[in-house]
């Protein structure tokens, strides 16, 4: 026991002298969590609070263009910036290049007249099918000139699609309103009252959003709940740089030769590193979670809500730490140079994080990735954390994530033992 204590003490002393290693293990993940959460939080708020700036050039000579602008404004997703009718497309795109706005919409001159003509045609067809006489059917009302939507290329596909969806729904509203007005007029030979119009068009079925939860409580997910656990796992596994490097350094140094001549088994070196770095991963988790809970609100980010099952959180953090340490030691045992350990270690963690769903959600990955995802220990760590943080689960609820995580850890430990025996180190 005294030998183990002395070895742990030695590892801690070396670790404390390794400032670059400490930066990699603590400062870098903290920065990463702050930056990614801030970015994702602003994306969350893009939909809820922050609005996408939209230049609107209404060239329509009628009233429907104005109604469309009001409908777009009502969606609440855009900050509208009106542009003079006489401004050319080039002037609008120049403003976009200057990042005045990410989007611009141009409503054509004939928007009202052609939309009305189409609406009238639709209404007449409807009246005709009801057996009522409408105005004589036009052969073809002609197509409405398209609205032009300019978008900045930095706007990613999902945002662009949601913008297009929002604009289509506004357009649909204006068109439906016009059809309704014409139908009303044809039947009642008077204008439709505003109250009726509002009643008919605005009385939509509302949508109640309920996030999936294991404990029955409704907690709205935010960027912190998503990012803090994910990047904590990344930080834990990123100790590979320091830990595997330390094992290789020790193997290559003269001290290793002396250790082999002493009456103590080399396995003790590995056991000491497991314990020391497991503590490091737990400290990392505690610091990052602590920042999420106490520091985030001070810098305008949503606070991290810790799960109700704190003991479950500790156990999962311990298991994630064990797996991360096992992975790093495995690389350290097999790498022949520090460059191999650092290069392979860092690259493999980024890849495992990517396929494990830390960077892109697992559900958004192609179907062919369904098996590969399961090979990443980071995936099982993330699923276990999400079970606690997002779904309000308890330890028993996430057993199915713990079992594969344990299996991967045991496998890594067996590979370590095999590698040490093969290299005659134990």
């Amino acid at each position, binding site marked *: 026991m005294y030998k183990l204590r002395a070895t742990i003490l030695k590892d801690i*002393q070396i670790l404390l002298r390794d400032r670059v290693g400490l930066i990699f293990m603590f400062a870098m993940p903290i920065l990463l969590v702050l930056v990614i959460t801030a970015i994702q939080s602003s994306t969350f708020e893009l939909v809820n609070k922050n609005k996408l700036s939209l230049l609107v050039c209404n060239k329509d000579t009628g009233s429907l263009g104005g109604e469309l602008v009001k409908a777009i404004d009502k969606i609440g997703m855009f900050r509208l910036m009106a542009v003079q009718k006489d401004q050319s497309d080039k002037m609008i795109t120049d403003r976009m290049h200057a990042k005045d706005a990410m989007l611009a919409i141009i409503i054509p001159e004939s928007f009202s007249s052609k939309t009305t003509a189409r609406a009238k045609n639709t209404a007449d067809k409807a009246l005709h099918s009801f057996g009522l006489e409408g105005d004589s059917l036009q052969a073809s009302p002609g197509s409405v000139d398209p609205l032009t939507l300019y978008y900045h290329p930095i706007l990613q596909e999902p945002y662009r699609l949601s913008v297009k969806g929002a604009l289509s729904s506004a357009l649909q509203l204006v068109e439906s309103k016009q059809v309704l007005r014409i139908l009303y007029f044809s039947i009642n030979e008077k204008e439709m009252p505003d109250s009726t119009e509002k009643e008919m068009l605005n009385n939509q079925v509302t949508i109640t959003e309920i996030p999936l939860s294991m404990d029955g409580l409704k907690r709205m997910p935010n960027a912190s709940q998503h990012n803090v656990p994910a990047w904590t796992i990344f930080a834990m596994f990123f100790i590979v740089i320091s830990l595997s490097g330390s094992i290789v350094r020790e193997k290559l140094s003269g001290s290793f030769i002396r250790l082999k001549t002493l009456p103590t088994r080399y396995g003790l070196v590995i056991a000491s590193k497991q314990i020391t770095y497991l503590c490091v991963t737990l400290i990392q988790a505690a610091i990052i979670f602590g920042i999420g809970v106490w520091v985030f609100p001070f810098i305008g980010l949503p606070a991290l809500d810790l799960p109700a099952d704190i003991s479950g959180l500790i156990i999962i953090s311990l298991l994630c730490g064990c797996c991360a340490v096992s992975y790093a030691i495995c690389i350290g045992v097999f790498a022949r140079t520090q460059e191999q350990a650092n290069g392979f270690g860092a690259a493999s963690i980024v890849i495992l994080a990517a396929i494990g769903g830390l960077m892109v959600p697992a559900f958004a990955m192609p179907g062919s990735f369904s098996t590969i995802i399961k090979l990443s220990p980071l995936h099982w760590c993330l699923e276990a954390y999400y079970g606690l943080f997002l779904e309000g689960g308890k330890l028993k609820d996430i057993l199915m994530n713990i079992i594969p995580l344990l299996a991967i850890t045991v496998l890594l430990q067996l590979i370590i033992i095999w590698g040490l025996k093969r290299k005659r180190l134990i």
Partner: protein
Amino acid sequence: MAFMNPLAVDIEDLGYSHPGQHDLFFSHLNLKIAEGESFGLFGPNGAGKTTLMNLMTGLFPIREGSIQILGSEISQHHKSVSRFFGFIPQDLSFYEELSPVQNLEFFGAWSGMRQPAIRKRTAELLELLDLTAVRNKQVRKFSGGMKRRLNLAIGMIHEPKLLFLDEPTVGVDVQTRYTIINYLKELNKNGTTLIYTSHQLNEAEELCDKIALINEGKIIVHDHLANLLSSYREGGLESLFLNLTGKDYKH
């Protein structure tokens, strides 16, 4: 050759080949070193001095024959035998990130010592090797001589009966060499067996009772230094060395 004292090292019919090589580098090699001796192993670069040292300390596995250290087979009883010997490798063998005290405490624990004994011995060794003033400084910043002295101190922490020294004075200044050689002479006088390799033949003349010359994996001669010089009619170890191993570069 008859020995008055029990044997510290008894090598019989040793066979060893380097990893990945089929041919034996050592074949039927025999060597006996008595307890209390100060024994020097010399030879040109690549002659097999360090390899033999690594075999004696159990770092390399033997292929044929046996090596007994202090009466026990090293390949079978490494853990129990290694308590009684110390090894000063040619490469500096400690943690440069740590201080001398931290290094000595760690290697003391690994040598099977308890904390009070380690503390006492650490203070003694640092004083003897003139490292007390820098006891808590990071070793990385030390001069080559200070590092060599620390390298020696770590191998001595558990007061071994037998000390293997692989070029302990390589790359040090005259003062450090003087300190180290004097310390080793003192140790030997107090009963510690020394097995020593070096390219510094004048050190050997000063330190060693017996020497062996090794070349291309074979022990060419093994005797008291005085006997060798008289039987080969050489004035010094250097001329004897050149006479027996040739003047051409070996490696």
